[in-house]
């Protein structure tokens, strides 16, 4: 009866109305008391339940050090779910979800607690007909991976022979190429490559999928999506906040490892890649890998990279302290909070088009975007004063906030003789479609439960990304304290100089 070939006659691919529903499964959450769990993961799981995307009898097992009973655990997580869920809180959904919630108290080094986890899983399987399908979400520091995965292995919880076993891991995937390989060895010792899901929550955002639709479902952008028309591409992820309470994590890691290595390289790959033959995971990954293989920071590393640390100042009307004064940060730290690099992609489509990637803490505002700047018109039948106010044409894919697309071009100012000025044409996803976009984690968790991997980067992509970044990181490691930039500004002077030397300028996002 439990043969894998069983086909549910009620399932129908043509039935687009039915929500994608995960099959019977249990999600085991390590690091359940962490910030990410409270703010993102648990609310996302509730939202999935609210959409009817989780099967009845779906299991959620929290594993943590606290001395909680399951009831206490449920009472603990209820407020954060109420507060952070995207969809309204409904008692009946909550009841259904909590029926499947369990808490296992334990520590990573305690064999006994993993035996209890195993028992809890076995009991749950037997009672709810889960069929041994278990996903392990490791929302814990990578240094604990080896221990936890080892324990799972010892207690027979990674055995794929009855039901699937999947591991979900979060960035950072190492701190350089070598360490990412070590980390991968640890994980792949227990889980085969197709069962490891690396979460990059940017890839779960609708806009990234919208980007695929935008580029490959439309006729009018493809002809200009190349070096003939594009002069440079600027990918920005800026945050208005400082490092907050993350000093322990951030010092020694820095902006480039935290953001460029994963999020920005993935965005770059999606923006620059050729059209995949299909959106199957293999085809999509192949195209992204081709871009990353052809990418490098070329020439003099010093002139094609820039870094900085935010200094005390005013950010958006509030006085804030500098990075080196933050609690828990070594006052002589050389960790950067601003990182920018110029990447060149050696391909027919992009040769000679610089991709400028930057990320910043304590920027003037929070924004993530990909901007394509176009060449200037080769000949202008207008006089210089007419086009004084005309900048370059650009196409901006805004990831967050307010996901959308903006086109910037010149238009005549009404009533003047002939005066041309920059105008923006804006399309907003939230404003134009009925359903509010699901949170990235909702999408990604459901994809894991369904075993649908196109949005998850694989080890090869992680390694290629480190290959691009490692030389720059090595340079910075021996360059002393990064330049200070006042909090609330768009970064240090050496970053502006980096573009100016090559004849470009940062756009103000």
């Amino acid at each position, binding site marked *: *009866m*439990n043969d894998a070939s*069983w086909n*549910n*006659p*009620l*399932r*129908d691919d*043509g*039935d*687009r*109305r*039915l*929500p994608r*529903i995960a*099959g*019977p499964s249990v999600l085991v959450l390590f690091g359940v008391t962490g910030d990410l769990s409270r703010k993102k993961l648990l609310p996302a799981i509730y939202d999935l*339940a*609210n959409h*009817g995307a989780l*099967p*009845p*009898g779906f299991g959620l097992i929290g594993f943590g050090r606290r001395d909680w009973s399951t009831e206490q655990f449920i009472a603990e997580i209820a407020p954060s779910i109420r507060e952070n869920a995207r969809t309204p809180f*409904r*008692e*009946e*959904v909550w*009841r*259904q979800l909590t*029926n499947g919630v369990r808490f296992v108290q334990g520590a990573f080094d305690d064999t006994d607690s993993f035996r209890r986890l195993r028992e809890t899983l076995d009991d749950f399987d037997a*009672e*709810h*007909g889960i069929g041994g399908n278990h996903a392990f979400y490791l929302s814990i520091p990578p240094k604990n991976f080896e221990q936890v995965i080892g324990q799972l292995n010892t207690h027979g919880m990674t055995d794929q022979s009855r039901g699937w076993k999947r591991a979900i891991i979060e960035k950072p995937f190492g701190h350089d190429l070598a360490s990412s390989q070590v980390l991968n060895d640890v994980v792949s010792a227990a889980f085969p490559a197709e069962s490891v899901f690396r979460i990059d929550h940017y890839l779960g955002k609708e806009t990234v999928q919208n980007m695929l639709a935008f580029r490959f479902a439309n006729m009018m952008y493809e002809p200009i999506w190349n070096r003939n028309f594009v002069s440079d591409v600027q990918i920005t992820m800026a945050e208005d906040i400082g490092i907050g309470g993350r000093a322990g994590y951030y010092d020694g890691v820095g902006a480039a490892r935290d953001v460029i290595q994963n999020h920005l390289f993935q965005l770059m790959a999606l923006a620059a890649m050729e059209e995949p033959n299909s959106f199957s995971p293999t085809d999509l990954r192949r195209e992204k890998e081709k871009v990353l293989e052809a990418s490098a920071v070329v020439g003099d590393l010093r002139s094609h990279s820039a870094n900085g640390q935010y200094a005390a100042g005013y950010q958006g009307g509030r006085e804030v302290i500098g990075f080196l004064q933050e609690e828990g940060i070594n006052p002589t730290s050389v960790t950067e909070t601003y990182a920018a690099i110029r990447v060149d992609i050696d391909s027919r489509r992009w040769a000679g088009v610089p991709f400028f990637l930057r990320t910043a803490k304590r920027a003037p505002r929070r924004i993530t975007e990909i901007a394509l700047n176009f060449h200037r018109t080769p000949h202008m039948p207008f006089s210089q004063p007419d086009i004084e106010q005309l900048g370059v044409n650009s196409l901006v894919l805004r990831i967050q906030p307010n996901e959308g697309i903006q086109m910037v071009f010149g238009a005549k100012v009404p009533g003047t003789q002939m005066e041309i000025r920059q105008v923006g044409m804006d*399309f*907003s996803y939230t*404003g*134009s*479609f*009925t*359903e509010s976009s699901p949170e990235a984690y909702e999408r990604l968790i459901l994809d894991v439960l369904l075993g649908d991997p196109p949005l998850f980067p694989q080890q090869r992509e992680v390694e290629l990304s480190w290959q691009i970044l490692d030389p720059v990181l090595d340079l910075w490691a021996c360059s002393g304290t990064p330049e200070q930039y006042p909090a609330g500004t768009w970064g240090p002077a050496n970053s502006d100089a980096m573009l100016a030397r090559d004849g470009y300028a940062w756009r103000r996002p």
Partner: protein
Amino acid sequence: MMRLENTDARQINQALNEMRDQGRGASGQVLTLVINIDAYDTDEAMHMAEQAAEQHPSRILVARRGGTNTHPLNAAIKATSSTEVITLDFSGQMDRHVSSVLLPLLLPELPVVVWWPTRAPNELYADELCTLTNRLIVDSARATHPTTMLANLARDHRPCTTDLAWARLTRWRALLVAALDQARSKVLSASVTAPADSTPSDLMAAWLELKLSIAVERPEPDSGYPGLQSVELLTEAGPVVVRRISRTDAVLSLPGQPEREVALARRTMKALITEELTRLSGDTAFDELMDHIAKREG
């Protein structure tokens, strides 16, 4: 809110342009939704139209038909940053020339959807509004004679026409799919319990018939909840039952497992219409189902 008495489409368009000039117009709209209601319909229909408007960045044309005003056409315009709701009161002979008013008010090129929230015409495709688009939404569950209406719909069905009675079943169907995933067993027979004249239940029974190639029993219910009450699939492993116990909950039982409560709230009109407008490309599963019903009846 701007009111125009004894007006025409030209004046309405002018008013919309003026509002836009003053920065009160809407932008980023993705479709035109025509809502057809009767002048003597209660405020409920109007309320539903407003609910839909809340949710959808679109131009909404509420056509209130068969009024008894002195003026053949009165209009009221309300605009937010994403939606314009234009209520059109048709009286006297203007009622037979509705599309002449609607056609100039449709957004260029974007999809047009016509929705009858209450009674839809008996001869749906003969209605003048069908000249505007092929995307039609009706609601057999709210018709005066639901079963007759559903039979007519199935007989005349064309792709891109959908029935909200079908959207009411989405959660039920999802639950049954998930339940059968767990039971993993061949279904031998099925029964659908509901009061007579419930078209969602008719659709549920027909869907099970079609998908499982079995006859579906239709016992009368012994409790008083309106609408679909329970679905039972008798599998080789034992019965799979979904039974409603309140407006928000149902009980699911699976072979060899304890009964458990599952969330199964009755869906709001807003949720139903959102589901319809999310997929304008048609619903092949529903087309097949209507074919099946037509063949069975025919």
